[in-house]
């Protein structure tokens, strides 16, 4: 039985090792994210044909849909990290959960803005109280609540634990909100891309979409690791390993 995987994960829970690991991974993730995003934008804006119904206006899908996927994906990742942090009291998991929240909020905001830009020519309105739009707005408020609660505590670890608990309440709440607003009102088109069964999308439009999804995932990793590194340096500033790094970067000046 290969037991290096649990051993490696166990070691990754230590702040100095995670700091070094994140420092190695981050530039690669960022470079690949930029490459994938450029390829996806070229494929989506230049190679893909115009839509028979929406013309060129549909091309905002290559930003809108990957952002919408990321807004939910990051919430899921944050909730998993929050759960791990609360149950096993792993400091790295708490930091990952808390530093995911602003990135997720940014993707949610991008989704709302691009959706509103797309809605104006297609539906003739910037905003409508449709089920998906409302759920996305509620998701933004959930993110903002987590961020706000984290920063309202004097002690960062205590704030992280309280905000992690709020993130877990939120993940129970998201399906309830989605179901209830669906019952209330709906206008948004159904999903076009499906994991199971055939997608309702042409191949030349699908591959840029999936490449952009990959790019946003990689960007999330790069951004998250940069934020976690900064957070670790700040919270662990009294520890020896931070002093060693500071001395190495500053020469011998204290």
């Amino acid at each position, binding site marked *: 039985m290969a037991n290096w995987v649990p051993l490696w994960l166990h070691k990754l829970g230590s702040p100095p090792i995670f700091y070094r690991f994140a420092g190695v991974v981050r530039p690669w993730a960022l470079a690949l994210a930029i490459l994938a995003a450029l390829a996806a934008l070229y494929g989506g804006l230049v190679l893909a044909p115009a839509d028979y119904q929406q013309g060129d206006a549909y091309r905002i899908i290559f930003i809108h849909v990957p952002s919408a996927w990321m807004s939910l994906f990051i919430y899921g990742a944050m909730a998993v990290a929050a759960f791990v942090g609360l149950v096993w009291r792993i400091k790295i998991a708490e930091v990952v959960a808390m530093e995911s929240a602003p990135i997720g909020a940014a993707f949610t905001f991008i989704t709302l803005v691009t959706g509103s830009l797309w809605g104006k020519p297609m539906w003739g309105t910037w905003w409508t109280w449709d089920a998906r739009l409302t759920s996305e707005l509620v998701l933004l408020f959930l993110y903002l*609540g987590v961020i706000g*609660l984290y920063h309202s505590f004097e002690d960062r670890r*205590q704030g992280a634990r*309280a905000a992690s608990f709020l993130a877990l309440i939120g993940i129970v709440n998201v399906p309830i909100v989605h179901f209830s607003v669906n019952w209330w009102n709906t206008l948004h088109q159904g999903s076009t891309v499906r994991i199971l069964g055939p997608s309702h999308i042409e191949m030349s439009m699908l591959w840029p979409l999936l490449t952009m999804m990959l790019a946003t995932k990689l960007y999330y990793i790069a951004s998250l690791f940069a934020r976690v590194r900064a957070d670790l340096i700040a919270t662990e500033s009294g520890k020896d390993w931070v002093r060693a790094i500071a001395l190495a970067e500053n020469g011998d000046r204290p």
Partner: protein
Amino acid sequence: MTPGSTSAACAALFRRDLTLAWRRRGDIAMPVLYAVIVTTLFPFALGPEAALLARISGGVVLVTVLLAILLALDSLFRSDIDDGSLEQLMLAPQPLALLLGVKILAHWLTAAAPLIVVAPVLASMLRMPANVIPALIAALVLATPLLSLLGAVLVALTAGTRRSGMLLALMLLPLCVPVVIFAAGAVAAAQEGLPWVAPIAWLGAALALALVLAPMACAAALRIAMDA
């Protein structure tokens, strides 16, 4: 009831909270006064046209009651944190979730129950037809304890922080969206003469779930927030 048993502790806590609330009767009147003031402002802002007021009356009364409860929620644990009795409650041998459930019940009786009493008056001021009032009361009877339970979890989470009314509102909004939708859905259905039992049943199901889960979540949140 033997002294020190769980039921005796719950009864004592319930009596203590009601006594404290009764000694500060002015605080009980505040949410009601707030609801009256907000409801009075709507006709001034929208004009006294009866048809328009009747159309919006259900939503206005529900949102006003929700805001009044939000205003009152802050006082749920405030005095107990200030004088240290919340720590004693957490150290007590009785299950914390049960004790918190009793506290939430006492708070609901003093803060939300007066709002339910005054809601039909407010709705009538906004020209709500008399046959809709039963639906409104049914929706409020189920929605207000639900809001108190959900709000208590969030108040417990902010227990260790400085005063944070805006933060509480931001955190409560996603949780209260389904409650508002179903409560307002029942009132709107009644106004159109449709059967309104289905949304009320959803509210009842949610309340049953929250009655079991929310005190436990509240206890867990309090242990996190007070763990300094």
